[in-house]
């Protein structure tokens, strides 16, 4: 389990580096965000929720086929999207002011 950062989408803003609870994300030589030790990722998704460009996804294993989870953090909501082989298979929206019912 780890995050994956897309170099194509990364805009080098550095927000993800400054939020990782393990300080695991550092810029590569060109300045793109990079997780240097994916096996140390806790899967908290703090970076995903901070990235304004949708460049970060969470996967449960390192296989290319594994489902990717993305988060779009809006003012009132977080929109969670699940992508499998470039196809959206599910979308769930959580409301920030709405408490858990369970």
């Amino acid at each position: 389990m780890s995050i994956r950062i897309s170099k194509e989408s990364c805009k080098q803003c550095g927000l993800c580096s400054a939020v990782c609870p393990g300080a695991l994300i550092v810029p590569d030589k060109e300045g793109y965000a990079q997780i240097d030790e994916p096996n140390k990722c806790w899967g908290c998704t703090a970076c995903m929720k901070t990235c304004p460009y949708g460049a970060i996804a969470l996967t449960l294993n390192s296989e290319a086929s594994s489902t990717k989870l993305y988060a779009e953090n809006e003012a009132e909501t977080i929109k969670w999207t699940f992508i499998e082989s470039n196809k959206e298979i599910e979308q769930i929206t959580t409301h920030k002011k709405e408490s858990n019912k369970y």
Partner: protein
Amino acid sequence: MSKIYRTIKTDVLIVGGGTAGCYAAKVLHNQSQLSLVVAEKAFVKRSGCLAAGVNALNAYIGPGETPESHTAYIKREFDDIVRDDLVYSVAKGLNDVVDELANEGLPILRNRDGSYAMRGKRSVKINGEHIKPLLADAITNKERITVIEQLQIYDLIKENNRVVGAYGFLKEENVFYRILAKATLVTTGGAAGIYKPNNPGESGHKMWYSPFNTGAGYAIGIRAGAEMTTFEMRFIALRIKNTIAPTGTIAQSLNSRHINRFGDDYLKDYDRPTTVERLLQTVIENKEGRGPCYLETEGISEAVERDLYKAYLNMAPSQTLSWIESGVGPSKANVEIEGTEPYSVGGHGASGYWVDSLRRTTLSGLYAAGDVCGGSPKKYVTGCLVEAKIASAAIIEDIETGKLQGAESSSDKWPLTESFGDQDDGADLMILESEMQSIMDKYAGGITTFYEYTIQGLEEAAARIDKLLDKALSIKVSSTKRLGELYEIIDRLYVAKVIIRHLSARKETRWSCYQQNGDYPAKDDCQRHFINSVYEPSGIRILTRALVGKEQTYEHSYQ
């Protein structure tokens, strides 16, 4: 590479900017004029246990309950070995901090009359996805608070038997810090990663407790000779298999039965099973061939399933991802559960610093709150906040009454640097870590032995851990990033040594799984006391301490 040395002075140093640390900084800032430094290993916005979020505040005094009944409940859960004075003082402060969080914008589920909707007697349901940024925002951009991020603290500064600050280094640069302070408050997490985890290898950090909590807060105190308590009580969580996500959301809210592979409710013979008993019976089912074990969720409605997806996204997103990826949600398949590896954590169990009623440790100038503070289990998030408040009040009092003067000498010592220099011997630190985890797993009551240990096994563990520590202390690294990784292992090895000594000192089985002594499988009421320890150059000295009453004010007798 050149090294940079910086010395800074402050009134109060807070080691660890997690739940308790952020809140302590807020309280100290609001209630005094003291200058504060918060030393944070990563970044305060999401660091610590609350990184992903949390679904409920599990320590709250609900309707019909009182601080007295709460204290009695915790005593029962831990078979009497808790510090009643500490537990009671936490209980009395819980509801105030919950109200404070609500006022600051934490969404809490409410009934029609505006009261909090309870999950059981002691939990309120929240949207805690954003709880850590809420705590961190309160200490950001304050004139008297200096937050230093990516600063790893590695030792306390001691002067005439008083603690007057700490040494640290920055992770990404070769910068060393000496922070001199009148008071030092340890608020780091406890220790994960000492035992072999459920999922070693690629997903080694797929665990319940923050894998970044590597026992530094314990280790600096152990090395400085602070008295520690109850390290024999490890904490083992019952979690969802593979993702190690929490089970309370399902077990408590849906009242799901715990069933074995034959579909039998294996907790049906317990009247009100304690947390330990739920774990123990799950272990027994597996041991006796009736596993795997499940929470029965098959047949829940689609609406409930949808709400569970949301609940987990706000706390443990990998669980929702796992359900979606497999295409089989909890309405279609029961949720398999398992016990985790043991952790040392004073927010759930009782291992940590031995403190007086106001959270002063046995070393003058050193205070503890939250997961590193011992004797007060099941305090959880809100209890950690209450403890931060209590410790802050003690610090303000001790500084204002002139009890703490800070460092006197201007000695320019920089210890440690033996490991650090121009040469890096390229040691594989991951191998060192997994050796430690294997030793503890096999010989000190890990998952492999169903948490049970024997005295002979502990002797083996002690010898092997000592050897590993010698090896770790001889490793040479040439960057502070590597030094940080090395210290995360050295710190855990010190904690491991203390765990082993404590496990061997309790010659009974007081809490199954948490402390299960194969040579002494029964409870022995002659051992209704605390087991404490002090790390000395000659070895670890074990002492026993009597239980402390609820209304009693416990003070250290400094020698």
